[in-house]
């Protein structure tokens, strides 16, 4: 069977002879015979590439909801943005794709400089001086931000807005079982985090708020900052990077840490991964920064050079004293984001933000013209997502819309757990979050509106 190993039979024989061995099995003599696999693994035999391609194509075809087949109005943390051929071509270069972590800077200046450029871009978007080289995804970034904030404040109690993406909150709560952090979820009122419900709590060291929420609503960051000043707490803002280009930055609003999901910066929908965790913080927090950090320096001849720095923070040096265990991250997605942002430029990124906000507002206006369809939060300004309530169950609506050629959004019944503080329980079953990126057209919106009118009749 063909594979990717170069050895000829003669070479294998020669190599064994060089080792004074007679059979390849002798290489495994240190492994007790009683433990060894007998008769091979119970798996299909290997197959040539064209056969495997045909099988994987069959699986791909079975994904009838792919954005290549349905017009995508789903958002809520993952967005269908333009990723042009030039970005795909550059990000797909083998030198980037097949490199390892830049442990030898002399032969890794390409990745290191690209990461340095990425760090600069995220630092500017978030309005904070320090950005790391990426974490796994938005959920991981919020988790690490909480870890940093607890270590910094030395207080276990964390106020977590339910405007933060529901599954990310689940991840934060899972990992809090190990760290012992006390995660207190704070509900929303008119789309804003309602801190009045938890005003009696003391010992709060961390406050986490979104900008925007997964429902598209915008929070009052000035109020969150004032609360943190009063409590002596660390402010973590979970910020959408596209919106960040046109809104006052988290840093400008007083965030100590800003985190987010960077998928919208050049990564395809990818069924949820690999995505890109963004993480930025103030200079005061740099010694607690999780993950890798690239810094500029000079080589022996005085040439500008880049290198991973402040390494003493990382797990391989601090071991059990580390506050983060991150090793591999999502560097390729970070480099992709740098390329995508380079393609968009100042004007293009703002344009994507403005169009996404503008088109989602247009979508909301058109959709609510349908009889029985209303906004979940009437009169509340929303940015790139908007939640609507229809006469039928959200999951049923999406099934029916798929039959009309649309991925109509994300049903809150699937995304949130029952009793979630972010949504009115009486409306949750019928609520759907929708989004229109800069890729959606007026004709597509008209088609969706007609389809909703048809399937909810």
């Amino acid at each position, binding site marked *: 069977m063909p594979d*990717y*190993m*170069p*050895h000829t039979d003669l070479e294998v024989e020669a*190599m*064994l002879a*060089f080792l004074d061995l007679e059979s390849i099995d002798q290489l*495994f003599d240190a492994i007790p015979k009683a433990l060894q*696999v007998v008769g*091979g693994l*119970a798996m299909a*035999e290997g197959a040539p590439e064209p056969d495997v391609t045909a099988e*994987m*194509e069959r699986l791909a075809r079975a994904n*009838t*909801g*792919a954005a290549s087949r349905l017009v995508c109005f789903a958002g809520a*943390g993952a967005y*269908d943005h333009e990723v*042009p051929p030039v970005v795909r071509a*550059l990000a797909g270069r083998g030198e*980037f794709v097949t*490199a390892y*972590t830049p442990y030898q800077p*002399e032969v*890794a*200046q390409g*990745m290191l*400089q690209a990461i340095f450029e990425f760090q600069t871009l995220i*630092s500017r978007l978030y309005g904070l001086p320090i950005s790391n080289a990426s974490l*796994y995804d938005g959920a*991981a970034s919020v988790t690490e931000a909480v870890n940093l904030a607890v270590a910094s404040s030395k207080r276990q109690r964390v106020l977590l807005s339910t405007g933060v*993406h529901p*599954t990310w909150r689940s991840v934060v709560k*899972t*990992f809090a079982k190990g760290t012992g952090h006390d995660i207190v979820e704070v509900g929303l009122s008119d789309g804003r985090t309602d801190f009045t419900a938890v005003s009696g709590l003391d010992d709060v060291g961390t406050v986490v708020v979104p900008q925007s929420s997964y429902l598209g609503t915008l929070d009052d960051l000035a109020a969150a900052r004032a609360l943190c000043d009063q409590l002596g707490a660390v402010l973590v803002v979970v910020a959408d990077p596209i919106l960040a*280009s*046109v*809104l006052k930055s988290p840093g400008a609003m007083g965030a100590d840490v800003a985190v987010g999901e960077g998928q919208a910066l050049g990564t395809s*929908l*990818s069924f*949820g991964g*690999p*995505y890109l965790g963004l993480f930025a913080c103030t200079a005061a927090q740099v010694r607690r920064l999780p993950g890798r950090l690239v810094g*500029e*320096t000079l*080589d022996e001849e005085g040439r500008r050079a880049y*290198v991973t720095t402040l390494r003493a923070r990382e797990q391989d040096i601090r071991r*059990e004293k580390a506050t983060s265990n991150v090793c*591999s*991250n*999502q560097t*390729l997605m970070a480099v992709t984001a740098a390329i995508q*942002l380079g393609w968009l430029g*100042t*004007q293009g990124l703002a344009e994507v933000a403005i169009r996404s906000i*503008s*088109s989602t507002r247009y979508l909301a206006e058109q959709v609510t013209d349908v009889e029985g369809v209303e906004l979940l939060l009437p009169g509340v300004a929303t940015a790139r997502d908007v939640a609507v309530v229809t006469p039928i169950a959200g999951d049923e609506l999406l099934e029916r819309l798929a039959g009309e050629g649309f991925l109509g959004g994300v049903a809150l019944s699937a995304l949130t757990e029952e009793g979630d503080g972010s949504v009115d329980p009486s409306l949750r079953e019928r609520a759907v979050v929708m989004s229109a990126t800069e890729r*959606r*057209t007026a004709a597509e919106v008209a088609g969706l509106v007609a389809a909703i009118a048809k399937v909810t009749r």
Partner: protein
Amino acid sequence: MTNRPAPGGRAASAPLIGRDREPTLFEMSVPGRSAFQLRTTGIPVRPLSELLPSELLAASPTEIAEVSERDLVAHFTRLSHRQFSVDLGAYPLGSCTMKYNPKLCDTIAAMPGLADVHPATPTSMIQGWLELMVELEAALCEVTGMAAATLQPSAGAAGELTGLLLMAAYHEANGDRRRRVLIPDSAHGTNPASAALSGYEVTTIPTDERGLVDLEALRASLDTDVAGIMLTNPNTAGLFEEDIAEIAAAVHEVGGLLYYDGANLNAILGVVRPGDMGFDIIHMNLHKTFATPHGGGGPGAGPVAVSQRVVDFLPGPKPTRLADGTFGWMTPARSIGRVHGWHGNSLVLARALTYIKVHGGDGLRRVAERAVLNANWLRRRIAEHYPAAHDRICMHEVVVTGTALKRATGVKAIDVAKRLLEEGFHSPTVYFPLIIDEALMFEPTETESLQTLEALAEALDKIALEAHEHPDEVLAAPRTTPVRRVDEARAARNLVPTEDARG
């Protein structure tokens, strides 16, 4: 010394050129220049001031950079030429398994039916993805001898943390609060860091003169306060822990679980399975063993497979085959909860399944055989100047020591590593494991040819001779790379993490 051209070797250093620095994107920026082109939508664009409260809006958009598409392509192409990669040449970096990444896997991962799927798409419309994940889970369980797996963790370290939370959940369900995890002194740094983040205290177990876990020390550390042990087998010295059956029995006897760090799984594919050795929880690094590309430090994927007794605690929701033959989601009865924002690094998972399908069970065993054969051939071939720390058959990687060379010439392991860059090979891992003096850890992987290994050995011999005759030459290396040795102390002392921090 031959000058026969070999795959890898000096030829591989040729594209790494450019003695002048590449300007940054920001230095190339010219106001008013642009590259982007967006779709014609027909939707009126309204000013933000009409859409959002004015107090939220920035005075002007964030400044990115303004370059042409042509300049963008040239910039990142030049950066790519300053980057070593598996595509370019041999990357014998121990413990990282830098094997060839088949192009097929990238092509599959780019198929629109996989890459363009929104993660919250309803179940009926993602049957292909769910089937793919169920099939991958089954394959990984067969390879590891486990009962079920989660595909959610994004990397090995995320897998470790997940696995340790599973360990804690298992004990807690038994009404058992245990505080300690045992970790050998040769372990990867992520192990103790993950243990600490899951609330455990770490007890370090020493290595004996064989390079293996000191069984007596282990027994002395075991009591009912021990939640479990984290082991890599083969260990980081590239040696198989021969006493694994005894270790497993001893840990299980006090009610502890065995955690397998799958970083070195490549050595034993189809030969021996962690489940059969007695392990209860294992994470795999798909970006090592199953050839998904490393991407310059990620994305990886770190699925966690478990034995029957831990199955109920796995993260959810989990892809599953339903009674009617279709696919859906299920959450295990006593799940620890989600460990990923969505379903894991899905496109990495698709690559790994593709790789597994091409190889099959027979091919995976051949992977382990050739990986171990290559490591042992290299071990013996370079032994004259670089003796193995433990002189016997190794697994997929070999740790050699530069102690004698350093004593005789003043040339250290790091100097050999830097000099090797001039010869067109990526450096081995140096100074790890921490317990071996002047360690150089080589992992050639199964995809390098005998000719490439010979070229690597010749380069190493040449460096050793040069160290004796002209040590200054070695100490000055690398001289042919885009930059020479960099001032790491300066980078830390005078932190410049962004363009805007430059003084």
